[in-house]
């Protein structure tokens, strides 16, 4: 896993070196740099060393937290990232809560009430979640709820109330979290549903029913708990997916997070900023996957790792 992160950083680094001479990233004035000054700058920045050495140096710098400065306004990349990452994390958390809180119960409901309206609605919800592009459904929801109905704000995070949990502040989270969480919710719904269906057919459930145990007890205490393994592992696996989802959702809703910063960095060809953001995402991705593996091993004691 560690190797994957190193390999990923190597890929990011080599991509960054493909834009051409990186000297211009560091020299504040590209013009008027005499030949000797240029050579001296190169030597100082170790640009005359082989690429592998440059990579190692860069990696060392990154490990110490020096991501360089943005091209646009020369702010330190770590500062920019530090400003925005909290907002992205909050949105990701809200979306995750939505996805788990809606996806799993709907999955149970859909399995238990198998041929009912709930099942029908839940499956439509799941279908739409996997087929609709986030940017489109986000824009349509904005049009519906913000422009036409005026019920919800059309973007940004700031309700400008001092109390952080006021309704005015929270209502900004509703649409973005819904859009970001819809896809994962669809996945959780399907897997919970299929796991529940499988468990509900098993012997011990039939035995409990024949014993006369109440339906609700059967569903929740017996069936649901045993059906939790696949959904939990999927939940852990998709945590990483929220990270890439934020790029689009933040852009649509003008959410001041890392994702929208990445989009504007792309437009401005702002290489250092882009590299920094990608690195952070790679690390977060790897951490999420690691967490997923640990959770998986913890949840299902039958799994043993060599």
């Amino acid at each position, binding site marked *: 896993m560690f190797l994957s992160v190193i*390999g990923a950083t190597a890929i990011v680094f080599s991509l960054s070196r493909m834009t051409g001479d990186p000297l211009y990233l560091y020299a504040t004035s590209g013009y008027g740099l005499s030949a000797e000054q240029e050579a001296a700058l190169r030597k100082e920045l170790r640009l005359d060393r082989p690429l592998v050495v440059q990579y190692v140096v860069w990696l060392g710098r990154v490990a110490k937290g020096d991501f360089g400065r943005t091209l646009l306004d020369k702010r330190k990349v770590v500062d920019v990232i530090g400003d925005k990452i909290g907002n992205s994390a909050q949105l990701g958390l809200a979306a995750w809560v939505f996805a788990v809180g809606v996806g799993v119960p709907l999955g149970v409901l859909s399995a238990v009430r198998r041929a009912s309206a709930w099942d029908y609605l839940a499956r439509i919800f799941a279908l739409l979640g996997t087929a609709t592009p986030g940017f489109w459904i986000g824009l349509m929801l904005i049009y519906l709820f913000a422009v036409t109905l005026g019920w919800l704000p059309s973007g940004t995070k700031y309700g400008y109330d001092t109390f952080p949990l006021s309704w005015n502040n929270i209502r900004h989270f509703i649409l973005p979290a819904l859009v970001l969480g819809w896809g994962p919710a669809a996945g959780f719904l399907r897997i919970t549903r299929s796991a529940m269906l499988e468990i509900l057919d098993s012997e011990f459930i039939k035995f409990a029913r024949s014993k006369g145990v109440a339906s609700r007890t059967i569903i929740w205490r017996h069936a649901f708990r045993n059906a939790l393994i696949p959904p939990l592992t999927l939940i852990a696996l998709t945590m990483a997916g929220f990270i890439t989802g934020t790029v689009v959702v933040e852009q649509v809703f003008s959410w001041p997070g890392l994702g929208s910063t990445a*989009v504007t960095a792309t437009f401005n060809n702002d290489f250092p900023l882009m590299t920094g953001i990608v690195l952070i995402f790679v690390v977060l991705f790897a951490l999420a996957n690691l967490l997923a593996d640990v959770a998986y091993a913890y949840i299902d004691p039958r799994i043993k790792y060599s």
Partner: protein
Amino acid sequence: MAVSGATTRRASPDLAGQSSRFAAVLAVWDFFRRWPLIPAFILVGIIVMAIIAPWAAPYDYAETDLLSRNAPGFWDSQWYKDHPEAKFHILGTDPFGRDILSRVMHGARVSLLISTIAIAIGMTVGTALGLAAGFYGRIVDEIISRFVDIWLSLPFILIAMIATIVFEPGMRILLILLSLLAWSVFVRNIRAEVLSLRERDYVNQARVAGASGRWIIWKHLLPGVVNTIIVIATLRVGQLILAEATLSYLGAGLPSPTPAWGLMVAEGREYLRLAWWSTFFPGFSIVLLVMALNFLGDWSRDRFDPRLRQLS
């Protein structure tokens, strides 16, 4: 033959003992699940639309008509009465005055073409690597699996965005990126499949008979994984289309004035309040196409290889 998804789908009473009133609706649903007529019609319809676009589209997809910018479509005849000099556009125009219907039709060509080529490349490369990893094992397997792990640990959209800063946005880089997105699924699943097939008797007998590795792969293993390939391909095409649309929306895909659906949504975004049709129709087409493909993918999985149930 009909090992379809209709396993236990009759209108059985649920656990609490109530029988459902919506049994009829779900019976219809399940009929269409068995024989995916609706998705097939939709898909064929979109393909036909894509093919006849150069001739059947009412306007040229790049022709701007600045007098008719953000014109509405058939639902707003009042606007056309107010602007008698404007030409009629069935689905309206975008902020540059380009006809939406024509662009949607040409966009179908773009989406279908790109996703087909990408899945074909991804399928070929992924299958080859999966076969090699599964069959030859040990070092080859290690290396290939490591590559896949590294690739999967990268957030795709961001890498795509960096790649389009480095290289110019265009068809070629988009195809490369989408193929890279497609290949990893194939590698893992084909490898797993080969690992199980490898121990079968007929393979061992072929080995004893002196068949070379390549012969065994080509003649024995490959036909065994064809089902898996088909299922994975049909399940993943939709994902590729969504990825292409997302990249085009973010500006990291096809450049203007290509009528890529994602790009159309992005272009219409500024005028969403005034002219919702610029964003609605291209996006809706994406939804239709991906839903149809997902349905067909599910159906093909149920029909060809139900063991892949957990895949999606």
